[in-house]
């Protein structure tokens, strides 16, 4: 069973295509693993066992009949529980929406369904993708599979935790201020926040219209590229959807980094914040490894992290309050304490303050893209610290702000987080790689070169 549990999408796809593993056998193996581990991990809000088995049987019938749809045909995956799948609850991990059942698929779920993927269920999130970890909600928060008493990151907590635990090979997350990349960092998996507008947000509970991104979370870089290939593309029903040509994200994966220009944003983790020493050492070792493979390394300077954070948080607070105003006025007691406090931050903002932040965003974006003028990608920290205990309220509050993810929600650039080793106590460390707008393929190329050289993805938690 554990051999199937940690198959990559690429490996599983080959086994399914060649009929060495049946989608039913694969799905049953993962469901059995979920049954064993889930009571300790809390990655799921809703498990769709019967529906998954039905989809697996259907996939198997099609493949046997010679109607193979492609790499995701017969591959199980799961959705963060702010993403609609027709007929299943979308709760946002909140009492507010505990009875909400999706009437249609989100665009990402529809694309994955069309590709033949098998939905296992809906995953734990911080309440409405903003408040967590919380113990005062209808479902418990997800745990970190490397240490079950530790924080798995968020808000796409169940996605990160379930991937690292081998419950599924691919998941969908969302990222408004780092919510794909934080659990990727703390759980030791791969999370891509694509360029703003590349993946449709249709059928996804909004948090901040201007900053929300939907993206793939996987255990390997190659799988991440494969999943983005399925979910990326223009959608008329998402007003922010980009109408752009979608490249083949796998073509350049194995080209290596020789001659690529990589800018290091060192001030983010040494000056704006002083990151944990082991996290700094991991990033510097990664830079050295990329240089040894022929990348051309330089250092670049971006606006201070505090500027990106302030700009992003004002926009996020104003827009999130607009989304939640009615419920905050009529049902404030139905939120968990963490989400309520975060959402109330927007209550007193003025229209002028919001618009000043939106104007500032444009300036920060221009300055950042100017700094990217002579490089192909940048690298920096994602979070400044490894995971802390999930009940360590003070450290959780401190670490929430100690991150370098919000800048790329503000600029809309693609940013991928990959595993970069382990800190003391075997807690994952990470590296963030940032590309030009719509430069996901180059991010993947750099990430793949590092992943291949280091092999961190071969390590899994004992559960």
């Amino acid at each position, binding site marked *: 069973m554990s051999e199937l549990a940690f198959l990559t999408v690429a490996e599983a796809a080959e086994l399914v295509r060649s009929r060495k593993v049946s989608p039913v056998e694969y799905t049953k193996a993962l469901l059995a693993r979920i049954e064993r581990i889930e009571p300790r991990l809390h990655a799921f809000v809703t498990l769709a066992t019967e529906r998954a088995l039905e989809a697996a049987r259907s996939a198997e019938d099609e493949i046997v009949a010679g109607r193979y749809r492609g790499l995701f045909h017969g591959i199980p995956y799961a959705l963060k529980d702010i993403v609609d799948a027709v007929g299943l609850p979308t709760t946002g991990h909140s009492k507010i929406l505990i009875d909400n059942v999706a009437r249609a698929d989100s665009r990402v779920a529809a694309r994955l369904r069309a590709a033949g993927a098998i939905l296992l269920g809906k995953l734990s999130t911080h309440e409405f993708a903003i408040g967590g970890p919380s113990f005062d909600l209808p479902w418990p928060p997800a745990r970190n599979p490397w240490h079950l008493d530790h924080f798995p990151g968020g808000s796409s907590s169940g996605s990160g935790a379930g991937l690292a635990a081998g419950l599924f090979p691919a998941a969908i997350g969302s990222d408004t201020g780092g919510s794909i990349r934080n659990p990727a960092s703390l759980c030791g998996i791969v999370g891509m926040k694509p*360029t*703003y*507008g590349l993946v449709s947000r249709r059928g996804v509970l909004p948090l901040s219209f*201007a900053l929300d991104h939907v993206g793939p979370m996987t255990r390997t870089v190659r799988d991440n590229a494969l999943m983005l290939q399925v979910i990326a593309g223009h959608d008329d029903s998402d*007003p*922010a959807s*980009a109408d*752009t040509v979608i490249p083949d994200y796998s073509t350049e994966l194995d080209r290596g980094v020789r001659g690529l220009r990589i800018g290091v944003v060192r001030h983010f983790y040494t000056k704006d914040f002083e990151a944990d020493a082991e996290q700094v050492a991991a990033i510097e070792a990664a830079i050295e490894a990329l240089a040894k493979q022929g990348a051309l390394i330089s250092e670049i300077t971006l606006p201070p992290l*505090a*500027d990106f*954070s*302030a*700009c992003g*948080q*004002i926009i996020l*607070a104003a827009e999130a309050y607009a989304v939640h*105003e009615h419920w*905050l*006025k*009529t*049902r*404030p*007691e139905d939120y968990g*304490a963490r989400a*309520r*406090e*975060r959402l*109330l*931050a*927007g*209550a*007193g*903002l003025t229209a002028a*303050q919001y*618009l*000043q*932040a*939106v*104007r*500032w*965003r*444009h*300036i920060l*974006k221009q300055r950042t893209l100017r700094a990217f003028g002579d490089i192909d990608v940048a690298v920096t920290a994602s979070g400044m610290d490894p995971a802390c205990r999930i009940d360590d309220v003070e450290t959780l509050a401190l670490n929430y702000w100690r991150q370098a993810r919000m800048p790329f929600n503000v*600029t*809309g*650039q693609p940013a991928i987080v990959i595993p970069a080793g382990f800190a003391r106590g075997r807690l994952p460390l990470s590296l963030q790689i940032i590309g*030009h*707008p*719509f*430069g996901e393929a180059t991010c993947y190329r750099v990430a793949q070169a590092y992943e291949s050289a280091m092999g961190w993805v071969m390590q899994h938690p004992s559960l």
Partner: protein
Amino acid sequence: MNDLRERARALGLDKLTAEHLVQLERATATMKRHIERLPGNLTVADEPAHIYQAKGRGS
């Protein structure tokens, strides 16, 4: 607390409990620190994009 309750009422948040009002106060203080960083030197020409689009190289 009464002042805080009045401010909440003015915002239409008249169902907040005492615990919620403390949260509102903390959240407002956090947001104030962000607002203080807003640049004061934006020119009249610094107009936001009405629909934000991240433009790629050469586009």
